[in-house]
């Protein structure tokens, strides 16, 4: 658009042609600078994907699809499989969503319906924002110092080997990290429910909990689902706290107490010391992780978009 404007002035006064053309140069330069910046952002994402594909290609050439079908990850014997980590990732992230669900629903109903303003609402909001602002590595450190001994004593009571670290420990910390995110998305969605609908229900004599269950939740269901998809995307990619608490075992977890590894944590653990095909395999794990989070996030975003358009 701006280039068109510059083009129109070209034929205008001839006397100031020199001045105009210098302006045009700057104008064009500026527009193309903006375009270049935008395109470079596109290129970054494209290059991410291409880099991961190219760098993990040698693995697929060498081992075929064994990466997705075998169950063993044994770098010393050049055996690589993503499945133990895919299982670990899905278990920890789904478990953490399950734990976070009641708390984040309670927070979003509280902030979206019961307490919209006032000092308590502000307090709850600041608390969730604080939780969201604490770095992952500090959650991990706190988990090692506080949560691990608790889980160990629980395991002793249950007569198990007191590892202290494992799927459950990681999921507990992870749920603490995603509650604020899921709750703030949920609150936004709930406060978008049209007032007329709620007022109609109140006018019929419905209590607040009845309005929540029969009006707000049915209306906001897809938006809330989208929020949990986005939270799941976060949980899947979370690295440091999980790496510190999951116990780093390269086998498919047998239960919620067993140590495991997620895709992110195995990369964090082994990439530094890996070489050759081992590095390639870790990059392939990264590729799978990126595709998985991409799918989950775009599913969440598209459900959210439909909710916002429909609502």
């Amino acid at each position: 658009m701006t280039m068109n404007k510059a083009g129109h002035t070209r034929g205008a006064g001839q006397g100031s042609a020199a001045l105009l053309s210098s302006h045009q140069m700057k104008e064009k330069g500026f527009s193309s600078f903006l375009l270049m910046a935008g395109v470079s952002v596109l290129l970054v994402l494209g290059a991410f994907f291409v880099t991961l594909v190219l760098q993990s290609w040698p693995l697929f050439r060498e081992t075929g699809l064994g990466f997705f079908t075998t169950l063993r990850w044994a770098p010393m014997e050049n055996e690589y499989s993503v499945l133990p980590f895919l299982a670990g990732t899905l278990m920890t992230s789904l478990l953490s969503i399950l734990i976070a669900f009641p708390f984040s629903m309670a927070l979003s109903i509280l902030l979206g319906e019961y307490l919209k303003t006032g000092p308590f609402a502000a307090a709850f909001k600041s608390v969730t924002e604080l939780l969201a602002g604490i770095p992952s590595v500090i959650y991990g450190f706190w988990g090692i110092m506080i949560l691990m001994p608790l889980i160990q004593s629980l395991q002793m009571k249950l007569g198990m080997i007191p590892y202290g670290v494992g799927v459950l420990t990681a999921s507990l910390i992870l749920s603490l990290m995603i509650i604020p995110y899921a709750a703030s998305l949920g609150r936004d969605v709930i406060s978008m429910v049209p007032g007329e609908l709620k007022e109609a229900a109140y006018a019929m004599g419905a209590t607040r909990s009845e309005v929540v269950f029969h009006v707000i939740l049915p209306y906001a269901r897809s938006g809330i689902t989208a929020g949990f998809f986005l939270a799941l995307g976060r949980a899947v990619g979370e690295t440091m706290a999980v790496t510190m608490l999951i116990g780093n075992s390269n086998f498919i977890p047998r239960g919620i107490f067993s140590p495991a590894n997620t895709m992110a944590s195995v990369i964090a653990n082994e990439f530094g010391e890996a070489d050759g095909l081992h590095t390639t395999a870790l990059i392939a794990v990264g590729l799978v992780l990126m595709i998985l989070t991409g799918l989950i996030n775009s599913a969440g975003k598209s459900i959210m978009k439909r909710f916002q358009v429909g609502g």
Partner: protein
Amino acid sequence: MKDLSLKKRVFKERLFRGGVFFLASLVVVPLALLLGYIVKKGIGVINWDFLFSMPAGVGESGGGIVHSLAGTVMLIVIAVILSVPVAVATALFINDHPKNRISRMIRFTVDMLQGIPSIIMGIVVYLWVVLPMKNFSSLAGGVALGIMMLPIVIKSTEETLKMVPESLKEASMALGAPYYKTVLHVILPAGLSGILTGVLLGVSRIAGETAPLLFTAFGNPFLNTDIFKPVDALPLLIYNYSTSPYPEWHSLAWGASFILVAFVLILNLITRLVVKKWQIKY
């Protein structure tokens, strides 16, 4: 009969309300524990020596974290220098051509970039920067953090630019100012607070990131000011010290955690003040 059912309904309502308040308050408990623990363990460690001296040898008590404080500052500066110009220019482009196909692709890309796990930033930047330069470096760490900042700054700048009224732009164009001058002298100054907010938010997000630095900045027990050499950072130090078996290092890690959390919280506070004070009102 009717009376009973009303009582039941009111009881249900009370039960539900109680449940919601109870569960929401339970979330406060771990936060209070976490913050309390960081303050209790961290604040005693902090003194002049801790902030301004180099680490002591393994197992020795005392020693400081000046090398990782300097490293964190350096990484943030590199990330800001690399990402902010690109992000602001990208936001200007999207704002100028809102319906354009490239703009729509950029918006999608920004969403996707925001969702990429931080550890992947680490390995990709390792492949892009560390391998060709054959050296871990703070430059590589800054690149990884800069890419993480991009989507945050782009989004908040775009939001701000949307709020700059069209009439301001038209007034400038009507005076005969070329478009680039309108942008530099009218649009950007009007949206400065929003851009600043985005940058502060971005910095508070990346300040605590560890995963992208593991294979890029790598960590370094010595003070380093060369952008082509590995450098330590607060989150890296917390990770390394907290997973070590030495209690002295654990307490140093608590001190570092205290500094890092305080830094992030203060940044958030400043961001809120900026938003409140300089909100665009026309």
